[in-house]
């Protein structure tokens, strides 16, 4: 627990410094953040174009798919903003600069995650939020209840935690295979693309995989299905729609364990 507080404090210090440095070049920051926003928006453009040819995709309307898209994109955007730099760890292990982090009084995880904090990645978050808000206004025939309203922010934050845990697991894995960044990217960025679309257009096996193996279905599919009043393709019990925070907590615990195991086995370099 003390570790967590020390980590958060150290993370904050380093991030604050990089943000200050970034803000010294305000114009260039604004441009890159905007570029980031537009680039990630290209995904949504693809979906919009699809819906210019059809009214429903896998039984989902444009607004419903936009809800899926907005939530997963915001979640991934947050995780990517806060922890996306973790995938640099492989390089640091290989070139030996990891050693220099280990002699500072701040947990290494916080140092690596915060290193070169890229505020421009806020572009993806904004883009996701815009689509999310639009989808909420455009949804028709949804019976909003206090629970389903609350489910929206819970879903976004749980999703961010799940993606964050995947980032952390990927980083931990690089203690054993220092060039494994791609594997993790396929789960995060790939998983993001997957969950932008309705689960009904994929095979049952795939949906099962992202529910039980890598629990990406809890990022948005299951809670969103509850909001939209639909059944999930696997016919899981109803409470599963609310399990995202629990799943997220379990993922984080697992990631923490993997990280600690990896760090304990760290063996530095010969020079």
């Amino acid at each position, binding site marked *: 627990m003390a570790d967590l507080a*020390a980590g958060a404090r150290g993370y904050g*210090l380093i991030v604050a*410094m990089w943000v200050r440095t970034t803000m010294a070049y305000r114009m260039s920051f604004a441009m890159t953040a905007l570029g980031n926003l537009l680039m990630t928006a290209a995904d949504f453009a693809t979906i919009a174009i699809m819906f210019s040819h059809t009214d429903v995709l896998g039984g989902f309307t444009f607004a419903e798919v936009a809800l899926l898209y907005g939530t997963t994109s915001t979640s991934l955007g947050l995780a990517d903003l806060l922890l996306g730099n973790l995938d640099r760890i492989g390089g640091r292990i290989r070139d030996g600069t990891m*050693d*220099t982090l280990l002699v500072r*009084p*701040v*947990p290494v995880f916080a140092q690596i995650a915060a290193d070169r904090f890229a505020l421009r990645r806020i572009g993806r978050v904004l883009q996701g939020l815009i689509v999310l808000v639009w989808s909420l206004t455009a949804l028709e025939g949804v019976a909003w209840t206090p629970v389903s309203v609350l489910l929206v922010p819970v879903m976004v934050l749980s999703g961010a935690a799940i993606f964050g845990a995947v980032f952390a697991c990927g980083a931990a894995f690089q203690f054993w295979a220092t060039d494994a960044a791609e594997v993790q990217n396929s789960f995060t960025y790939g998983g993001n693309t997957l969950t932008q679309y309705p689960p009904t257009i994929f095979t049952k096996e795939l949906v099962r995989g992202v529910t039980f193996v890598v629990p990406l279905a809890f990022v948005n599919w299951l809670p969103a299905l509850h909001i939209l009043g639909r059944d999930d393709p696997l016919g899981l019990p109803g409470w599963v729609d609310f399990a995202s925070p629990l799943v997220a907590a379990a993922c984080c615990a697992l990631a923490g364990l993997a990280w600690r195991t990896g760090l304990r086995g760290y*063996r530095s370099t010969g020079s």
Partner: protein
Amino acid sequence: MIEVEDLRKVFAVRRRAGRLRRTRHEVRAVGGISFSVPRGEMVGYIGPNGAGKSTTIKMLTGILTPSSGRLRVAGIDPARERTRLARRIGVVFGQRTTLWWDLPLLDSYRLMRRMYRIPDDRYHANLARCTELLDLGDLLEVPVRQLSLGQRMRGDIAAALLHDPEVLYLDEPTIGLDVLSKAKVREFLRELNADRGTTVLLTTHDLSDIEQLCKRVMVIDHGRLMYDGDLDGLHAVGESERMLVIDLERELPPIDVAGCRTVKVEGPRQWLAFPAGASAAPLVAEVAERWPLVDLSVREPDIEDVIARMYA
């Protein structure tokens, strides 16, 4: 301050054997060393490439977990409480910087100040002192990546000392420095050790660092401690020799005097080696009496030769 007992580190490595096969292999980097360093001592830690110096330092900082053995630095087990220990030690890696590559020196220092929670007065006093003694005044606003090697090293040394560490580890701090920078760094370390009583452990391949800074040396080779004691003792152990260089009136066959041996003849000049512990006076007297002597000089044993002989 530093207590080490039967410390070992074995790396398991995989080597290619044939096209696809790989065999596991054990590299014994540190093979059971014991020593202790009291507070305020400045110790030189030397040995040939691959001897295990850096590995030892990495275990003393908590970067690496020992394979076995007991280890205490300032009463702390480094591997178990690495971040707690970090506040009390300073580390300089000559080979790589602990500073932030893209930030100006001063920004790095400011960040360290917050990270280490350095009290304002200590921070300002230490920064002023380092800036003056290490000549950093003009460099504080320069991004680290633009600094020359020697400038960066001085910046790194300052960074390692801002939080008043009790122990300072330096792994090859003078590597690649010119004579002037070396002198500056040595002078600084000497003062630090004398004024603050900071315990210093220093590895180097430049033996003049050791001669000028450390009363005590530890020699390690193949992961084993070969010598631990003062510099003079090292000469005795290494059976080092002093050299009498004589210039004769003309070219002569090698001189033959009891108690020494002629190692080299070059025209009228001859080199005579004799044990470092023996006096040169009787030797000089005998040579002067029996041969036409023009000039002579005595060369002190070179610590480098001593070490080289120990490794052999």
